[in-house]
């Protein structure tokens, strides 16, 4: 079936109430907002100084005083996790916007201008051919382990895959009848790209954005875990878990609780993105099995 009726993504936001009919959007948004707020307001919610070391309470299990227990230096894992959330969210947001912007731009160009497609895609293939974690580690090693450099590295890692997804959508849209119709009445390429193809690509762009955000949070944690991200004394989710690895058998809480928080955050993001996808694509809305 070919879509003859164009969907306008933004017009649907007029009924914001409609959005919240989608439970996954509400749940995902609530979860992410909650964790974001708690992280931003970390000074208010934390119970201890995240950097304060008390050797007397090394590796103590979770208690009323230390909700997530303490690590090998006697630091409060709960408070460190809260502060770690700030860096993880900042990383995720930044990577999503940077790679989303460049990915969409490259995807539109490659999908629409077939001559440039070959060149652009081969260069992107070259980048995508690297296993993402190795590329991120190598880039971070080159640039130096600062947070801004981790963000740049992760953006470089995720731009090609975003571009590829957007391109594949553009490839399909450019063959539709309404694009053919616009062409036949003399619409310019720019008009077709920005008035027809881009608005119709929004759903996959946003779904891809939520996916990149989520993956960036996980990959940042993995980098810190492997000791290739931001310096170890700065509390990040991966860094906290990494510090708990040698004590995994005696103090599993150092790994367990920050991991649960990462999962909740990423789960919320993915849930939100999925809901938004169902919502923004009306062809899927009416489908209730067969």
């Amino acid at each position, binding site marked *: 079936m070919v879509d003859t009726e164009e969907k306008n993504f933004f017009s649907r936001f007029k009924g914001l109430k409609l959005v919240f009919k989608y439970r996954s959007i509400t749940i995902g948004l609530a979860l992410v907002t909650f964790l974001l707020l708690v992280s931003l307001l970390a000074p208010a919610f934390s119970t201890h100084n995240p950097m304060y070391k008390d050797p007397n309470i090394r590796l103590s299990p979770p208690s009323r005083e230390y909700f997530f227990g303490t690590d090998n230096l006697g630091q409060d894992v709960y408070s460190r996790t809260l502060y770690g959330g700030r860096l993880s969210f900042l990383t995720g947001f930044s990577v999503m916007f940077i790679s989303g912007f460049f990915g969409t731009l490259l995807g539109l160009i490659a999908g629409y201008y077939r001559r440039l497609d070959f060149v652009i895609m081969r260069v992107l293939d070259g980048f995508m051919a690297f296993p993402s974690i190795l590329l991120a580690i190598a880039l971070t*090693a080159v640039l130096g382990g600062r947070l801004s450099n981790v963000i740049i590295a992760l953006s470089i890692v995720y731009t090609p895959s975003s571009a590829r997804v957007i391109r594949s959508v553009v490839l399909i849209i450019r063959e539709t009848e309404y694009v053919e119709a616009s062409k036949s009445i003399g619409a310019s390429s720019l008009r077709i790209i920005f008035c027809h193809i881009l608005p119709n690509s929004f759903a996959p762009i946003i779904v891809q954005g939520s996916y990149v955000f989520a993956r960036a949070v996980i990959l940042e944690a993995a980098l810190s875990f492997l000791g290739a991200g931001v310096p170890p004394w700065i509390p990040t989710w991966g860094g906290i878990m990494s510090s708990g690895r040698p004590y995994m058998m005696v103090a599993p809480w150092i790994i367990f609780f920050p991991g649960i928080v990462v999962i909740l955050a990423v789960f919320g993001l993915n849930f939100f993105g999925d809901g938004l996808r169902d919502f923004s694509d009306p062809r899927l809305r009416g489908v209730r099995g067969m």
Partner: protein
Amino acid sequence: MRQYLIKRILALVPVLLIVGFVGFLLLNLIPGDPALVILGPEATLDQVNKLRAELGLNLPIYLRLIYWYARLFRGDLGYSIFSSLPVLQAIFERLQPTLLLTIFSLIIASAIGITSGIVAALKRGTWIDQIATSLSIFGLSIPSFWLSLILIIMFGVWVRWFPVAGYEPLKNGFLKTLRTLALPSLTLGFVNSAFISRVTRSSMLEVMSQDYIKVARAKGLSYRKVILKHALRNAILPIITVMGLTLGNLVSGAVVVETIFALPGIGQLALSSILRRDYPLTQGILLFTATVFVLVNLLVDILYAFLDPRIKYG
């Protein structure tokens, strides 16, 4: 089609040149002197200079690049700085665990992913769909290193079904190998199944809202036939793409999982070679994994054109 094939195969050349170039640049811009790293802090300046000359590190960067490409064309990837083995040999010695890990993980991921994706799509809106979808998103949200550590605590320490570290090569018996790879494959398989399941579900839903499915149902075809013959066949394209991309994820995942489970594979080798500034080895590994990935991508694209004649290639 044949022209397209030839074009795509020729297109591998620039991609691999770019890969080689990026890999080369990356590693030559890394701060740190491999000669210093190898010899340690007690080395005299003379020793360092001698080694630098031996390794070609004194040459200007563009000459090093030209030599690198020239040797590449002869199929010579150089020698690892640390082990002094030829790079290709060093890679092939570490290939088996990674290859098996990748295959097992992909099988597990596809089995879980495609099944749960189809079930979720068919039962859309019911509690089964909710559970399947939530579970798949949950899997997508678990960091593989965290899952590895939890599995180690559960299966390696509490019930002791599987070894928590190390690798038994195939020549010691397939079952032994399988045991050592069980937890790592399970980790990677589960984490990556989520993505396949998610795409299977949305792709099936997309197809099932199309008119030809309604037509097929209306003309009286059985439910089963419509699902398997009309819906799944049309939904398979995105699924295949995702499986191809998953292969890249699996190699990435292998870096983490091999490090945690102490598997002597390519992932572990790659990480240690980057951190040790072993230029030739790192370049070789990057080129090797990139070649595999590019070939898989090519295969996916060819399948695409083969399975969906609507997509035009200029």
